[in-house]
């Protein structure tokens, strides 16, 4: 018989308002095995925890039930508390009378009644709890960062600085990500490349960082501290170890008509190319979709001109098997496609561009060498219209995204400002729903655009853009002026919403990390654990978790790195002791459990058992590896004889809860 203590928490008024905590602790005091029962304002406070410890000693409690908030919130807290008082951590059960009771019921009577039942269930379970001791599993001291943008680079650098080896897997031929395509950064207007490329070089030179570019993660197995990852290194047809990055091949290649993705197709590159001058690694890659040699077997110019003899048309994809202790997702974002927004004539006129394309048009390394020219006729535009929230903040969402993309207001202010600065003869209009400028020096920045640079900010949405003899007829509403505006623009710039990279969803599935409905990774806790995924050992860096600007991304990247370092700094991880174990006397050896185990934690041995009348029987029985078992319980149901049971969630315990609830 257990000696159980019951501790009912008011959670200030969160619980006490709709649950008569006194009545609850009184009612539960009458339950069999309960020797002490009380209630207190904040059980999780130091004072509350002290009381629990005190009572454990005073009454020699060997079971504790805390009626409080969700176990997902404070189970760990109270387990530690009890452990300090010499009680095994797994002799504690939480009755969730806040999230699942006081917060969803208005009527105090109902709430109280339900709280008592939930308490009873927890007590019934504790009666059957047994002390559990956690096993340990070793930590592989190596991290994987998926995505080589500013987020991934920063995370990798910070981890590497702490002395742990990191692999960066980047699907493009170079790291750098979106930031490489950006011209200047708000609110300081300093050059993006100037601050990014040194970091890229640092990453390349750091002996703890290994960049696996032009590669993608193919499969992830294992668990925290012990992931097994297969990485597909796509064939570049260029030997990285030999290529010097001289770029001769990219000049001689006869295939000139390849849209240059770095400039978003605003100009062309060759079939063999180096994405941009500061690429890391600075190694050419052959685009198999355009290379005549690879397609027809005729050409081979690049291999002739390559003095380093780095060209290798026979190169194949390479599959790397690596082991990691932690994984960071830093898969970043993409602007959404503009197809669905034909009212802005994006597909009809080359002079309607997205903001990112505009970045390239403004960029010295861009298609126009940094002078702003209309893509259609290369003339200098005089009237520019910036359209905000294209695809952002769309209710319904069938067309765009329900969320705010967060960065558009600021980069548009930047664009407008830069345009006016470089070309004072231009008229710049910005159509907006709201201008959102929270952030250090953000609002000042926006006001400078309006006040010092005379950018015309118009509250209202653009209804239609019609290309008409070389002009773009913009039809918009001015909500404040209460009038319809008709502007003959030379260029229209669309602030396209941003969405998670397409590779994020399949990756999340591989990582068993959950995602929200917009395919952003969900964090373990929206406030308290923003850079961790609910899946242990998987961390989140940058825009893959939600829209972010550069400073935020870098900050989160560092935070993720800190978490990874904290994990890798451990030699052993204490495993979850709530694992399956098989009662060999009842095991049939039928392998059903082994088949459903996702971790391969179950193995079989032939064992001799004492049979009746001093005989021995050899039987095949299952054995569970507690370090590998993650405690899902699939095996317990697959096992017909019930030989397989789950510690902490045993058949008996769950049925006891059922009984208590249905009583």
């Amino acid at each position, binding site marked *: 018989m257990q000696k159980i203590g019951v501790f009912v928490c008011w959670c200030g008024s969160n619980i006490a308002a709709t649950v008569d905590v006194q009545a609850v602790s009184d009612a539960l005091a009458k339950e069999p095995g309960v020797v002490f029962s009380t209630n207190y304002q904040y059980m999780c406070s130091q004072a509350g925890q002290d009381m629990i410890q005190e009572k454990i000693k005073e009454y020699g409690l060997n079971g504790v039930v805390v009626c409080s908030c969700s176990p997902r919130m404070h189970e760990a807290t109270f387990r530690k508390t009890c452990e300090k008082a010499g009680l095994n951590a797994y002799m504690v059960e939480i009755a969730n009378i806040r999230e699942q009771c006081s917060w969803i019921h208005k009527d105090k009577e109902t709430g109280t009644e339900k709280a008592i039942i939930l308490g009873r269930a927890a007590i019934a379970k504790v009666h059957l709890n047994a002390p559990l001791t956690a096993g340990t599993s070793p930590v592989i001291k190596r991290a994987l960062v998926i995505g080589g943008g500013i987020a991934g680079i920063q995370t990798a650098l910070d981890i590497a600085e702490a002395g742990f080896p990191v692999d960066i897997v980047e699907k493009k031929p170079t790291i750098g990500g979106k930031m490489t395509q950006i011209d200047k950064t708000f609110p300081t207007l300093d050059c993006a490349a100037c601050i990014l490329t040194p970091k890229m070089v640092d990453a390349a030179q750091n002996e703890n960082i290994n960049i696996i570019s032009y590669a993608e993660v193919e499969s992830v197995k294992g668990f925290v501290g012990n992931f097994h990852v297969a990485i597909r290194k796509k064939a570049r047809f260029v030997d990285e170890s030999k290529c010097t990055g001289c770029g001769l091949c990219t000049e001689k290649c006869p295939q000139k008509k390849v849209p240059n993705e770095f400039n978003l197709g605003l100009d062309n590159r060759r079939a063999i190319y180096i994405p941009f001058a500061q690429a890391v690694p600075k190694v050419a890659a052959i685009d198999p979709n355009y290379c005549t040699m690879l397609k027809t077997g005729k050409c081979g110019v690049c291999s002739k001109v390559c003095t380093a003899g780095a060209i290798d048309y026979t190169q194949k994809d390479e599959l790397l098997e690596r082991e990691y202790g932690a994984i960071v997702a830093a898969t970043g974002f993409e602007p959404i496609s503009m197809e669905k927004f034909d009212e802005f004539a994006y597909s009809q006129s080359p002079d309607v561009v997205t903001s990112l394309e505009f970045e390239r048009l403004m960029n010295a390394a861009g298609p126009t060498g940094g002078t702003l020219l209309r893509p259609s006729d290369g003339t200098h535009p005089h009237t520019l219209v910036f359209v905000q929230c294209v695809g952002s903040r769309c209710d319904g969402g069938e067309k765009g995204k329900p969320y705010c993309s967060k960065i558009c207001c600021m980069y548009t202010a930047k664009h407008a400002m830069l345009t006016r600065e470089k070309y004072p003869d231009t008229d710049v209009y910005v159509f907006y729903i709201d201008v959102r400028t929270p952030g250090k020096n953000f609002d000042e920045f926006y006001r400078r655009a309006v006040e010092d640079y005379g950018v015309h900010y118009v509250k209202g949405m653009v209804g239609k853009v019609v290309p008409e003899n070389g002009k773009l007829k913009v039809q918009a509403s001015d909500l404040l002026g209460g009038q319809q505006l008709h502007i003959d623009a030379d260029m229209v710039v669309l602030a396209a919403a941003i969405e998670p990279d397409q590779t994020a969803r399949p990756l999340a599935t591989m990582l068993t990390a959950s995602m929200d409905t917009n395919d952003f990774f969900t964090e373990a806790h929206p406030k308290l654990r923003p850079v961790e995924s609910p899946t242990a050992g998987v961390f989140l860096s940058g825009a893959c978790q939600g829209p972010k600007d550069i400073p935020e991304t870098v900050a989160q990247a560092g935070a993720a790195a800190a978490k990874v370092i904290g994990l890798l700094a451990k030699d052993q991880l204490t495993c979850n002791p709530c694992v399956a174990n098989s009662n060999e006397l009842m095991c049939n*050896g039928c392998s059903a459990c082994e088949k459903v185990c996702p971790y391969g934690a179950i193995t079989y041995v032939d064992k001799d058992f004492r049979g009746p009348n001093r005989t021995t029987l050899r039987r095949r029985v299952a054995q569970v590896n507690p370090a590998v078992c993650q405690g899902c319980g699939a095996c317990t149901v697959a096992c017909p004889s019930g030989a397989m049971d789950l510690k902490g969630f045993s058949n008996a315990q769950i049925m006891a809860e059922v009984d208590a609830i249905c009583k």
Partner: protein
Amino acid sequence: MQERVKARAIELLESGVRVLGWKAGEFFYDVTPAVFTSREEIEKEFVFGPFCGANMSKYLIAESRKEGRVGVFLKPCDTYSFQQLQKEHRIWRENVYAVGVQCEGMCDIEAIRSAGIKGILGVDGDGSTLTVHTLYGDKTIARKDALAERCACCKSKKMLGCDELLGEQGEELDSARFDQVEKLEAMTPDERFAFWRKELSRCIRCNACRNVCPACSCEKCVFDNPNSGVENKAAANSFEENLFHIIRAFHVAGRCTDCGECSRVCPQHIPLHLLNRKFIKDINELYGGYQAGADMETRPPLTNFQMDDPEPSVVHERGSEQ
């Protein structure tokens, strides 16, 4: 066939293996599974005839663990159980010499009795009608009426995984074995409930169905295990009747080869095979055709899945007009 089987049994015995077969009883129909260890025994008591319904495969769990080899005669349907048990590592194959025996369907003495024939002393005639000798003179019955239900809708005459075959290797048959299940499915829930109450309320929890079932070969059955939470010795009320049969059917789901022993041995003639067949039918319909014991490789449906498996709500949608 009787003679061929007997002759082979003797050869096997003399080659040094114990022989597991059917032993004659007081009457012509009450044959008992037995291990034969001497030639005389076989000559005197070994039978293989229309009343050798017993499925020998389950005995192999124990027999194959003993010293030396055991020879066994298996009817086509028995071979499915035989293979399923190997799949579950229950039979030590190396200690077994399996002889497949082709079968043209077993008779069921209970079927003859239900035809109102009393005091049965003997049966002969292999044709379409049987002559039954009784205390009250001779009676006749159509062979099909004397046939065991499971044989009337035999699913396969294929003999699997045997070391040798007596008689022609057979084929899988497209049997009408799901007809009764469909009939039940077509009923309203109330009718189904009434039907099963009537049947299951007769259950006396003698465990014959469980103990004869090759799939029910657990070292310790949950219903005998005081710690399982469902242990019970008698069906105290309608709930426990349901509980026992639902859980049993569930535990053998995807493993039951539909050998029909459960229904054969039920002293209360509860059509237990209709529970197992329901699962088999569902599995076939929802997850693609699967026959337990048909091969050694395929993953049993309950330890397997497809990403696009139907949702549990299909149950609600099916026949939701009711």
